[in-house]
């Protein structure tokens, strides 16, 4: 009984937050679709699902996101190994650099990719502009960092001894990987892949910019139906499909994640020296770095060019408001606001994420309790599967009146960003917490430690590095978040990605150059933050 109460107590705050800032707005929008004129009309919503266009949209979403996920995992695994198990020079810097694409606003990445792949670009001969290949490539470009970081974190703390034992018994490296390493990594790979799939399936900037409007995903379709056609019935139908699909995906992922014995021995393996046998993953990592760097380099070059000459003018312009005062505040203020917003979003998502991770990762007694934890786990992943447009419009129609008069609150943007980052935080922490042997906590309790003391001495030493990784993620997500923010941002309060979007939308080569410069600053800021996070991890690795 006390366990159940503790569980509910821990879950209460996150559940309440999600109820107000997610369930309420989204169901508000769905209700507008199901009750078009105050009358309940589910038939019209279901009828939408029979439209041939909807079938095309669904099929494209599934295969493009699935393929992009597979590409991310295949590219991410060797890099996760090389950057977390091998003593590569500069590996922390590389890890931080690889996270940069993840936080670049889609609009900027879209422009960078199009400059590379477009008919006039250096890779134009490939003829990829406006093809699904470009879309899948860009999605993988965004998300490969998720795989590297979350799989790398588990790989790093994987006990090397079972693998060594297998090798001593005559297993080849490939056999060791297949029979020992891969099964142990499966929970984190499945976690990362499911998050990446959701990110890909709900990304809309990439599909719109790179697909040349020839392709529509569920997310772009909801955007058009809501902001242009005001066809809320069709939008509601697609939102329901999204929610059902996300739930199904979570159930399947939950099954796959379960491994026979989750209690991993927690030993942080020292990175070992590079051997000739490591050539394949190292080469793969270097190639990945080059591929990721190309669009970023094209951004940097663009930001330094004015006409035919090299200049820093675009960077100097960041202190101002752009040509013809394209912005209502200097771009430097936008960066400051982005950082402040990110601090708020980070602590919010960490507090909520830690509570959720603790709740869902504890061993359950009995089936009902396990099921309850499973439902809670899935519940907090749902924000990933809902369109930012639906959420943004939902905020407007449901949070306008007392007692929930929040739609003009300055905290709405960080709250929305925290919700976007929350699943990443939970997915980073939960597998680690789940792998802590319950007997250790029991031992601590039997020695007289209270629950807090037990958490501090048993869980914290294991979880604090993943916690920092999660904090870095949340910060980065918040810095780059564009979808929800652009629906909520007010003119006096522009975050940098929204400011960049506005600059790109204004005529004049100066504003375009300034937008590129601002993107480079955003990318550099992120890299510095990630590098700082990596630095903080140093003591535990004994490198000092």
């Amino acid at each position, binding site marked *: 009984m006390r366990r159940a109460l503790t569980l509910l107590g821990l879950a209460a705050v996150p559940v309440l937050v999600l109820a107000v800032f997610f369930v309420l707005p989204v169901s508000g929008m769905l209700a507008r679709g199901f009750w078009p004129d105050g009358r309940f009309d589910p038939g019209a919503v279901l009828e939408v699902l029979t439209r041939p266009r909807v079938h095309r949209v669904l099929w494209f979403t599934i295969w493009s996101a699935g393929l992009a996920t597979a590409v991310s995992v295949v590219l991410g695994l060797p890099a996760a190994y090389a950057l977390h198990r091998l003593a590569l020079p500069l590996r922390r810097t590389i890890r931080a650099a690889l996270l940069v694409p993840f936080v670049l606003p889609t609009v900027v990445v879209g422009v960078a990719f199009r*400059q590379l792949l477009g008919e006039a670009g250096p890779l134009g001969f490939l003829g990829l502009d406006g093809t699904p290949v470009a879309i899948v490539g860009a999605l993988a470009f965004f998300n490969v960092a998720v795989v590297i970081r979350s799989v790398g974190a588990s790989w790093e703390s994987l006990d090397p001894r079972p693998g060594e034992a297998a090798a001593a018994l005559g297993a080849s490296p490939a056999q060791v990987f297949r029979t020992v390493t891969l099964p142990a990594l499966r929970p984190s790979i499945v976690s990362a892949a499911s998050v990446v799939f959701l990110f890909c399936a709900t990304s809309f900037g990439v599909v719109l910019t790179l697909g040349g409007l020839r392709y529509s995903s569920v997310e772009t379709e909801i955007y058009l139906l809501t902001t242009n056609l005001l066809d809320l019935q069709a939008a509601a139908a697609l939102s329901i499909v999204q929610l059902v699909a996300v739930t199904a995906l979570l159930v399947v992922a939950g099954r796959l994640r379960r491994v026979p014995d989750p209690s991993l021995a927690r030993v942080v393996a020292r990175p070992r020296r590079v051997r000739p046998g490591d050539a394949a993953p190292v080469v793969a990592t270097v190639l990945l770095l080059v591929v990721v760097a190309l669009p970023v380099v094209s951004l940097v070059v663009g930001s330094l060019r004015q006409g035919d000459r090299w200049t820093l003018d675009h960077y100097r312009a960041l202190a101002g408001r752009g040509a013809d005062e394209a912005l209502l505040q200097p771009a430097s203020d936008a960066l400051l606001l982005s950082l402040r917003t990110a601090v708020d979003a*980070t*602590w919010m998502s960490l507090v909520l994420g830690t509570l959720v991770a603790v709740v869902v990762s504890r061993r359950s007694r009995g089936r009902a309790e396990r099921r309850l934890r499973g439902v809670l786990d899935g519940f907090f992943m749902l924000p990933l599967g809902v369109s930012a447009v639906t959420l943004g*419009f939902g905020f407007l129609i449901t949070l306008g009146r007392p007692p929930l008069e929040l739609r003009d609150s300055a905290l709405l943007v960080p709250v929305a960003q925290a919700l976007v980052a929350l699943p990443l935080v939970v997915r980073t922490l939960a597998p680690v917490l789940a792998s802590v042997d319950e007997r250790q906590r029991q031992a601590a309790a039997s020695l007289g430690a209270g629950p807090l003391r037990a958490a501090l001495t048993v869980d914290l030493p294991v979880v604090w590095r993943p916690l920092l990784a999660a904090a870095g993620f949340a910060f980065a997500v918040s810095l780059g978040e564009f979808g929800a923010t*652009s629906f909520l941002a007010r*003119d006096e309060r522009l975050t940098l990605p929204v400011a960049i979007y506005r600059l790109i939308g204004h005529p004049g080569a100066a504003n375009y150059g300034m937008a590129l410069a601002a993107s480079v600053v955003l990318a550099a800021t992120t890299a510095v933050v990630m590098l700082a996070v990596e630095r*903080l991890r140093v003591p535990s690795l004994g490198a000092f």
Partner: protein
Amino acid sequence: MRRTHASITVLGLALAATTAGCSLGGGGDDEGAGKAEQVVLVTHESFALPDEVVAQFEEESGYDLVLRASGDAGALTNKLVLTKDDPTGDAAFGVDNTFASRALDEGVFDTAEAELPAGADRFALDGDGADRLVPVDNANVCINVDTTWFAEQGVEPPATLEDLTRKQYADQLVLPGAATSSPGLAFLLTTVAAFGDDWPSYWRDLVANGAKLTEGWSDAYQVDFTQGGGGGDRPIVLSYDSSPAFTIADDGTTTTAALLDTCFTQVEYAGVLAGAENPEGARELVQFLTGPEVQAALPTSMYVFPVSSEVELPAEWAEFAVQPDDPWSVDPAEISANRDAWLREWSDVTSR
């Protein structure tokens, strides 16, 4: 023990960061002003006015002007419709002639009681809308060509809509899509006005001739157009009649031209929201938007022409931004009745 030290340091840093004003809660907020003393303008993300003009309004009226800007004209209209029972502000600016009837049909706007400046009558709506939506600015969406590119190639640039489907201009046109951008929608309406029910076959020819579609104006102009910032390779683009004023070369002439037989006029309106908390302030604001200060600032702030014929245009505009005499037009009521069907058909014609 070092681990615990490090984690405490991190915790401390996080706390310090939050309390030291890095957080939004930490900084000084501007929530001081009382509610009755402010007037809230809901608008789209392209809205911009010089600080002096805003300051002048605040001084003359005694109200603080608060902006709520996000989305484009379509998103703005739909937001206003969705929140009509509980508006997010007092006045709205940015609903255009392609979306006006949706907002009016839904009863979003109250009467504005504004006096129009000289020359604005030709942009006013008919019927019920005339009292509620006040024209503030206008711009023509036209095909633009890179004149230097065509001169270098020794080719005559296209002049009409029909020219764009001719083989000699194959793979040279880039334009934003009608479903994702308001200039794109305006061009769809141009073709509806020019070709009537045959417009889908014109679009088939256009796509078959290698026309490239992008998500928005910036993608088409900045990345693919030869005179855009990104150094693209397509010399024909959909943009505005004012765009040539922004491509002035070192010798003081413009490198692009708008094709005046391909234009569609977009008019943006302002209005007082029904159920506004401060309707008097909203009326003053709407009147101010049509006044000489705002009208004169429109070209440089928002790249559009004023509706008032009394204000002077900037020098480059007077010289290089040529307006069409007889742009294409479609009746707003007809737009309202058919917009969604046209967009659906357009999407089917242009996607595969």
